[in-house]
């Protein structure tokens, strides 16, 4: 039995893990960098240890320091959260070598699934469709044409050492193949000093759909259905939902089985996610496996009623899965919106700072996983994710309408946020109709960013905005002039905090 868990993470996911531990009666140990002394995970954990300066390379990524704290605090197990060391095979190995439990898969699984080529091989062997293509370097025109012919147009030429879109060429016509290969090679050489390129099927209108799986140490594997994650900005998900509006029931069953086979092929243990690309014709291809908890796991928890963190801990403790596949059902609909500290209107520029005022939505069908509070300073060193707003509804329409209501209730000042941008997504026709793919944001750019809303009540509202601003301006003037800080000296004392009771 696991009695004490060290959480090797920060932010909302550390708080989320602490909550489930607390509900299981398991003690928690937080680690923190000097930038996170005031963070909620430090305050909510039973124990907390500083492990270094703010940069994560000097703190949250330091395996040695984390193991030292685990030893000192007599922890039984380590939960990695997501990001940081969660997909580091060495971390998994060294934890096991120290005689502790890693709440996650083995070094072997992480390493195998972390390498694109070995992951692709394993999936192919397990009968899971992968994006057609070769990883072989294209050397001449004939090879290029043969390869493209076997894959079928359109294709993408990609630099082997590539990244960030450099050395990539989309080819739609046969006569452009060789020209594009040459251009890609030249760009790849310039950018990476390596002109190797390979060819892959280009998926038009791709949907990013992933399956959650759970695998215990006794060979049992189940899936917990899919999550649709196609709404992305800068290749980062911002809205996720389940069920996917694209999948049919048959496809869902089929892909679920594939996900289970994928996990089995990787000797997987714990919670994991199989990511697929799905095109509009419902062809699906294995993309990659995430060997950890996902940011968007709460939507799955909402529709299945299963606490994934608790299942992770039970599995790591050697228990069998609490559920058989036929006991897991998908009830209702759930959507997650990620609230980032960023300026959505200014190329999603990060906006760290102090939260000066915070009002969070509540009521029916709402869940918030966050770590911020009034007075907290969102640090500049880490991910800008402040909280996740998750709604649940009987159906997709209700979940969307609830999300709108909650985004309207949500208020944060002191940092810029993605709240109004997320609100706009909820009324974008393509989203409302469930007809969207990973090109959603670029294709709906005008609708999303052109938010001037000239209805007939606008004029009144502007005048009232002017009135409220004038009152606030006067209030500030009165505060600034004179050194009396007592509201009773203020002509606007009615606005002050005096006991309402005395005015009645």
């Amino acid at each position: 039995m696991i009695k004490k868990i060290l959480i090797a993470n920060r932010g909302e996911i550390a708080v989320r893990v602490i909550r489930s531990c607390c509900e299981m009666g398991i003690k928690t140990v937080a680690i923190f960098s000097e930038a996170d002394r005031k963070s909620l995970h430090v305050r909510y954990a039973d124990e907390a240890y500083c492990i270094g300066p703010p940069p994560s390379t000097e703190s949250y990524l330091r395996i040695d320091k984390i193991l030292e704290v685990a030893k000192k605090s007599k922890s039984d197990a380590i939960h990695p959260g997501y990001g940081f060391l969660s997909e580091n095979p060495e971390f998994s190995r060294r934890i096991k070598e120290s005689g502790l439990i890693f709440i996650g898969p083995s070094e072997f699984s992480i390493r195998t699934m972390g390498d694109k080529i070995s992951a692709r091989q394993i999936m192919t062997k397990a009968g899971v469709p992968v994006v057609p293509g070769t990883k072989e370097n294209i050397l001449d025109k004939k090879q290029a044409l043969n390869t493209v012919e076997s894959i079928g147009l359109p294709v993408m030429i990609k630099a082997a050492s590539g990244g960030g879109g450099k050395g990539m060429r989309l080819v739609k016509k046969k006569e452009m193949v060789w020209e594009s290969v040459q251009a890609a090679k030249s760009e790849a050489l310039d950018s990476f000093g390596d002109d190797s390129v390979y060819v892959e099927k280009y998926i038009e209108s791709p949907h990013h759909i992933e399956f959650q799986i759970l695998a215990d140490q006794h060979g049992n594997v189940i899936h917990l259905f899919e999550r649709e994650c196609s709404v992305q900005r800068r290749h980062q998900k911002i809205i996720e939902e389940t069920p996917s509006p694209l999948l049919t029931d048959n496809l869902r069953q089929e892909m679920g089985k594939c996900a289970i086979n994928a996990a089995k092929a990787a000797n997987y243990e714990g919670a994991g996610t199989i990511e697929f690309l799905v095109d509009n014709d419902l062809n699906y291809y294995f993309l990659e496996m995430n060997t950890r908890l996902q940011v968007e796991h709460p939507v799955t928890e909402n529709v299945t009623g299963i606490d994934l963190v608790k299942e992770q801990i039970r599995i790591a403790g050697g228990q069998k899965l609490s559920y058989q596949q036929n006991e897991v059902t998908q009830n209702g609909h759930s959507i997650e919106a990620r609230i980032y500290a960023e300026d959505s209107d200014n190329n999603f520029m990060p906006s760290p700072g102090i939260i000066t005022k915070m009002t969070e939505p509540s009521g029916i069908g709402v869940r918030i996983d966050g770590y911020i509070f009034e007075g907290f300073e969102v640090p500049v060193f880490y991910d800008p994710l402040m909280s996740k707003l998750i709604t649940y509804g009987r159906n997709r329409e209700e979940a969307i309408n609830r999300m709108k209501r909650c985004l309207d209730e949500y208020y944060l000042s002191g940092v810029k946020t993605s709240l109004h941008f997320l609100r706009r997504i909820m009324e974008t026709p393509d989203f409302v109709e469930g007809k969207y793919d990973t090109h959603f944001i670029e294709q709906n750019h005008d609708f999303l960013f052109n938010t001037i809303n000239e209805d007939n009540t606008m004029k009144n509202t502007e005048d009232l905005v002017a009135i409220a601003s004038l009152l606030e301006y006067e209030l500030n003037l009165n505060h600034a002039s004179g050194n009396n800080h007592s509201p009773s000296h203020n002509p606007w004392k009615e606005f002050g905090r005096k006991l309402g009771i005395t005015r009645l």
Partner: protein
Amino acid sequence: MEIIVNKKNKEVKILERQANNLLVIVDNKKYHVDVKKIDKDTYSLLYKGKSYDLKVVSEYDKRKYSVKHQFNHYEVEIMDSVARYRKNRGNNDIEEDQSSISSPMPGKVVKIPIEVGDNVESGQTLIIISAMKMESEYKAKKNGKVKEILTTEGAIIEGNQSLILLE
């Protein structure tokens, strides 16, 4: 008082105040409004039965407000004597801006690819700042000569702090 809301000028005058009940004239229109300040940021206004929950936030300049109503934002400027004086002097805010490079957000200085005395061209990158796992390049807004570098590579900076001055 002259008040600019989303670039529209309005003349606002409070004619009467009785507790929370105000009579205000905006341009030529009279408003009987019931106003209550709820918390630091929030004003509740009732006008002709409609309920307006407005968030009124000022960052640095107490003449400039960002107001939120539902999911709409309004930029407000109070044109008091100081603001009018500034405006009459000409938009030298912008001139100042052009010769001073700053980042709107706190972060860490990744690289400063120039030195004091360098001649730089408009559009040339002067400094790279990293914040929240994203790097941003800040470029010269005019041609000029680097007069002063107020930070160093690796330093942690605050938002809106002057980093580089051009002549």
